[in-house]
C-alpha cells in the first residue's frame, strides 16, 4: 500500500469515527439543520474543483468539467451554510412576557 493511500485511510477512519461521536449527540430537533450543515461542510470538495478549473492548461473539456463541478460545489457551500443558519434562526426559546 502506498504511504499516501495509507495515511489518507488513517485520516478517513479517524474522521469517520469522530463524525460519529460528534453527530450522535445532536438532538433530533436539529436533524434537518444537521443535514444541511454536513452538506455544506462536505462541499469543501470545491477545493478540488478549484485546482481543476483554475489550472488553465490542458484541454478545454477538462476545464469545463472543472468549472461545472466548481459551480455545483459552490451551490452547496453558499446555499448549505445559509439555509442552515436560516433554519437555526427560527428555533427560539419561549419569550418571557
Amino acid at each position, binding site marked *: 500500500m502506498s504511504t499516501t493511500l495509507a495515511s489518507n485511510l488513517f485520516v478517513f477512519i479517524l474522521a469517520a469515527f469522530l463524525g460519529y461521536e460528534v453527530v450522535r449527540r445532536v438532538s433530533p430537533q436539529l436533524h434537518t439543520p444537521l443535514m444541511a*450543515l454536513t452538506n455544506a461542510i462536505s462541499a469543501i*470538495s470545491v477545493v478540488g474543483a478549484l485546482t481543476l478549473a483554475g489550472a488553465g492548461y490542458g484541454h478545454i473539456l477538462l476545464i469545463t468539467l472543472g468549472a461545472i463541478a466548481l459551480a455545483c460545489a459552490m451551490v452547496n457551500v453558499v446555499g448549505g451554510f445559509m439555509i442552515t443558519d436560516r433554519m437555526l434562526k427560527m428555533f427560539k426559546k419561549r419569550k418571557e412576557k
Partner: protein
Amino acid sequence: MVPASFPALTGLVATLVPHAAPLPWYVTVIYMAAAVSFVFSLKWLNSHKTARRGVKMGEIGMAAAILATVFLPEVRHYNWIIIAGIIGSGIGILLAVLTPMTAVPQQTALSHAFGALAAALVGTAEYYSQYSHLTPMHTGAIAFESLLGYLTFTGSLIAAGKLQEVLPTRPISYPFQNPINLSVLALAVACGIWMIVSPAHALLYPLFMVLSLLFGVLLIIPIGGGDMPTVIALLNSYAGLSAAAMGFVVNNKLLIIGGALEGSSGFILSMIMCKAMNRSFLNVLFGQAKIEKAAKADDVYGGKIKTVTAEEIADILDGARRVVIVPGYGLAVAQAQHATGELFETLTARGVDVEFAIHPVAGRMPGHMNVLLAEADIPYDHLKEMDQINEQFDDVDVVIVNGANDVVNPDARDNANSPIAGMPILNVDKARTVVVIKRSLSPGFAGIPNPLFARDNCLMFFSDGKKATLDIIQALKKT
C-alpha cells in the same frame, strides 16, 4: 500506453497533476485549521445555544480553505473560477432564501445531487487527464469516486422529484427488480475493475459512467415516498463518501475529513430512521412494496367511528389543562404549520399547557417537523422527543393528532401480527381524549387500518390539516 482513440486528449496527458506538488506549508496549516473548524461546527450543533456559532465557525473554515486554494501557485486562470463561482453562489443563495420550509426535503436532496455531481465530474476529469499513467490505486479511487458520485447524483434527483411530487411517490416496481438492479451494479463494478487493469481502454469509462447513473435511478425508484426520510439520510451519507473519495483522488486530507464527517452523519441518521421504523437498511432498499390487502378496515372501524365538529373540539379544549399536539406527514402536506402556531398561541393565551410530541420519522426528512414548527414561532422547549413524552400521556387531557397515522397506531405496540409490529409509537391512546385530524379513513404509509380511530376516547375530524386547525381556532375564539 496512450491509445490513438483519444486523439484530442493526448496533448494534455501528464500536464494536470495539481496534487503531485506538495502544498506550501501555510496552506497545509490553513487546511488543518479548516478541518478543526468543521469539527467544532458539528460539535456546536449539539445545543441550540451554540448552534449558530457552529455555522459561523464552519463558514470561516470554508472561506479560509477556499481562499488558500485560490491563491495556490498552480491556480493560474481565474476567468472560469469567477464565472462558475458567481453562478454557483447565485443558485445557492436563491435556493437558501426562496425554499419554503415545507420544501426543505427536496432542497436537501437537490444539494446531495449537486455535491455528488461535483465529485463525479472531478473524478471524470482526473481520469481523462491522467489515464495514461494511472496507478491501479489511483484508478481505483477515481472509479470509487465516480461510481458513488454519479449514482448519488441521479438517485438524489429521483428522490427530489418524488418529494416534489413531480414523479409518482408510490414505489415503482417491475418483475425481477432486485436481480436487475444488482446486475447493473455488478456490471458497473466489473467495468471499474477492468479500468483498474487497463485504464486506457477508450469505451470503459463512458460505459462505467452510464451504468453508475442508471444504477442511481434504479436504486431509488422502487422506494415509496414514506421511506424518503431513510433514503435522504442514506444519500446524505453517499454524497459525503463521494466527496471523501475525491479527497483520495486529489490527495487532499481536508476533503477526506469533510466528506467523512458527512458520511458518518448521514449513516447515523439513516440508522436512527430505520430504528424508528423498526426496519433494516436492506429492507428499506430492497424490500418489495408489500401487496398485502388492508382487508380488515371495515372490521376495525365498522360502526365505531365518532366524528366531531370544530365547535365540539373547541368545547373539549375549553376544559383542558394539558394538550399535546402530534404533527405528522399530513401537517407538512397541508402546510398547516403556521395555523398550528396560531393554535398554540391561542391555547397558551387561555392558560393551557401545550406541547408537541414529535416522532423521529414524522414528516419527510429527519427533524423536518421541528423545523416546520420552529418556523411557526413555536418555542423549541415545547417540542418533545418521543422518549421524553411517551410516559406522560396518561396525564394529558387532549391529544390533537394532525396528519399523522402510522406513528400513533397502537397495533405496532400491542399486536405482534401487525406489519408494523415493534415500531416505536407515540402512546397517544393513553390520553383522556384524542382528536384526529385527517381527510378520510384512508391509511398512512404502511397501508394498514389504525385501531386508534375506533377507540372510545378517539374523535375524528375529517378535514384538511390547515383548514381544520383554522376552524378550531375560529371556534375557540367564539367560546
